[in-house]
C-alpha cells in the first residue's frame, strides 16, 4: 500500500487514522457520560447543555474551528493554561484530533442517548433493589444493554472525524505530516497542477475506510444486539 500511495499521501492517510482514533477514544467516555445524564437525569440547564453539545452540528465548521483557535490556540485562555504542562493544540496533530472530536461529538452523543433511552428504567430499578449501587447498575445492566448504540456512536464519530475538514483547517492549518489529514491533502492536491491522480487515490482510500467502518460497526452492533435480546 505504501508503494501505491506516494509518501505525502501515505502520511495524510496515517495521520487521519491516528487523529480519528484518538478523537474517538477520548470523546467516548465523555460522550457516554453526557448522553447518560441527558437521557436519565433532570437538572437545571439541561437544555443548555443539550444545545451546546449539538452546536458543532449546526454551526459552520469554520466558526467552530475559529472558536477552537481562540480558546485553545497559543494565545487563547485554555491554550495558555495548558502550555506549561506540555499540552499544545495549535498547529499540531493533537489540535486536529480535538477539532475532529468536537465536530463528531454531537453524532456520538445522539446515538448513545437514543440507546440509553431505549433501556427500560424498570430493569435498572430491579437491579437497585437487588443491591446494586448506581455505578454497578450502569456497569452491569445499562452498559451491556446499550453496547450496540455505543459502538454505533463510536464508529459514526470515527467516520465523521476521518472526513472533518472545515474546523480542522481553520484551527490547525494544513501542514503536511503534522496537520494535513486526508481531506486537507485532497484540498491541497487540487491546488497543484497534475495532482488529480493523488486526489483519486485519496478518494478511493476515503471510500474504503468509510465503507469498512460502516460494515464493521453493523456487524458488531448486530452481534451485541443478539447478545442483548438473548437469542
Amino acid at each position, binding site marked *: 500500500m505504501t508503494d501505491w500511495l506516494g509518501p505525502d499521501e501515505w502520511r495524510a492517510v496515517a495521520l487521519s487514522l491516528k487523529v480519528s482514533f484518538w478523537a474517538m477514544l477520548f470523546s467516548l467516555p465523555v460522550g457516554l457520560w453526557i448522553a447518560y445524564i441527558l437521557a436519565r437525569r433532570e437538572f437545571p440547564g439541561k437544555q443548555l447543555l443539550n444545545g451546546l453539545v449539538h452546536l458543532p452540528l449546526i454551526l459552520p465548521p469554520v466558526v467552530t474551528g475559529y472558536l477552537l483557535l481562540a480558546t485553545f490556540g497559543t494565545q487563547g485562555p485554555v491554550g495558555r493554561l495548558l502550555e506549561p504542562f506540555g499540552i499544545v493544540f495549535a498547529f499540531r496533530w493533537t489540535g486536529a484530533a480535538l477539532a475532529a472530536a468536537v465536530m463528531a461529538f454531537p453524532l456520538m452523543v445522539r446515538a448513545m442517548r437514543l440507546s440509553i433511552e431505549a433501556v427500560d428504567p*424498570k430493569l435498572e*430499578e430491579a437491579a*437497585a433493589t437487588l443491591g446494586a449501587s448506581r455505578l454497578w447498575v450502569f456497569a452491569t445492566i445499562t452498559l451491556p444493554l446499550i453496547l450496540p448504540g455505543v459502538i454505533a456512536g463510536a464508529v459514526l464519530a470515527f467516520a465523521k472525524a476521518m472526513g472533518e475538514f472545515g474546523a480542522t483547517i481553520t484551527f490547525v492549518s494544513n501542514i503536511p505530516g503534522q496537520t494535513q489529514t486526508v481531506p486537507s491533502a485532497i484540498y491541497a492536491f487540487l491546488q497543484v497542477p497534475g495532482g488529480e491522480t493523488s486526489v483519486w487515490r485519496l478518494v478511493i482510500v476515503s471510500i474504503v475506510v468509510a465503507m469498512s467502518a460502516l460494515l464493521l460497526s453493523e456487524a458488531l452492533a448486530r452481534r451485541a444486539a443478539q447478545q442483548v435480546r*438473548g437469542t
Partner: protein
Amino acid sequence: MTLSVSLQHRLGAFDLDVAFKAPTGITVLFGRSGAGKTTIINAVAGLLTPQAGRIASDGTVMLDSTTGRNLPPHKRRVGYIFQEARLFPHLTVRQNLGYGRWFAPKKAPREDMARIVDLLGIGHLLNRRPAGLSGGEKQRVAIGRALLASPHILLADEPLAALDEQRKAEILPYFERLRDEVSIPILYVSHAAAEVARIATTVVALEGGRVARQGPAADVMSDPAITPLGVRSAGAMLDARVQAHHADGLSTLEAEGATLLLPRVHQPPGTAVRVWIEAQDVMLATEEPRGISALNVLKTTVTEIRRGAGPGVIVQLSFGGALLLARITRRSAEALALAPGTPVFAVLKAVSVARDAISDTPRAQDQQAK
C-alpha cells in the same frame, strides 16, 4: 421479624395515609387499583420517597422523615418481585439468579442456590436466556432472584396479574411454600380476593389511601364491612381438615364439627386446609331444607347484617368458632326476618367451591390450631 410501615404521601388528588405491621408470613395489601398498594410497596423498596413516614424492619430503620434517614434502594435489602418479571435480558437464568446474591453482604445468611432452584422447579432453565422463557417460568426465576439476594423482606407487586389462569395456578403454590418455609415478612399486593384467601396470613385492607382494617386473614376477610372490591367478591375463609376421599369424586372435610362435601381435593386425608367460600354461593333457610340437591347444610347463627347501597345485603354467620358470609337480597333478609341471633341453615352447593379455592393452611396457623 416484623416490618412496620407508616406513610403519608400526597400526589395531586391522591392522599395516602397508612400505618400497619407485617409479621413473618405473607401480609397482603388488599384493595382495588388506586387504593395506594403499589405506592406503599415502592416506598418500602425505596423506589419512591414519601413526604413523611417511617419504615423499619426490626432493628433496621430504612426511612425516617423526622431524622432525615432514607436508605437508597440498594442498601435496603428487600427482594422485590415485580408484576412483570423484569429479568435482565442479556444474562442467563443462572446469572439472573446470582445477580442479587453477588451484591449481598458476604456474611449475610445465604439461601442455598440448589434448594431455591429446586423449590421453584427451574433447574432445567439455568443456561437459557429470559427471552426464551414462558411468562410463568420468567416469574419463577424472578422469585428465585429476589430470594437469593438474602433479603430482610420480600415484596411482591401483583406477581400473578400478568399471567393467565393456568400460569397463576402454577405460581401460587410457590408462594404458599415461601410463606411456610421462608422466615422473613412478605408484603404481597393483590386485588384478587380468592388469591388473598389462599396465601395470606395477615391482610391489610386498603380503601382510598387509608387502612380500612388489618389483622389475621380470616378475621379481615369475613368482616362484612370490609369489601374493598365490592360485595361481588366478598367471601370467607374456613379452616378445615380433609377426612376422606370418595369414589364419586367428592371429598369430606371437617370444619368446626360440621362436615362438608366438596369436589375432590388434592390434599391427602388429615391435611389442614383453608377453603374460600364466596358469599354469593351461600343460600340461607330458616327451616332445615329437605329434598334439596345441595349437599352441604350448616347450622349457623346470624351475627351481623350489613346493608349496602344496592338491593343486596351481606349476612355474617357463625358456626363453632368460624365465620361465613352470605350475600342475599334485602327482600329475602326481610322476608326471613333475619336479625343478629337468628338461627339459620346455610346451604352450599358442593360444585360451587372451585378446586383451587382449597389450599394448604399456612403452617404457622396450623401449629397454633394444634
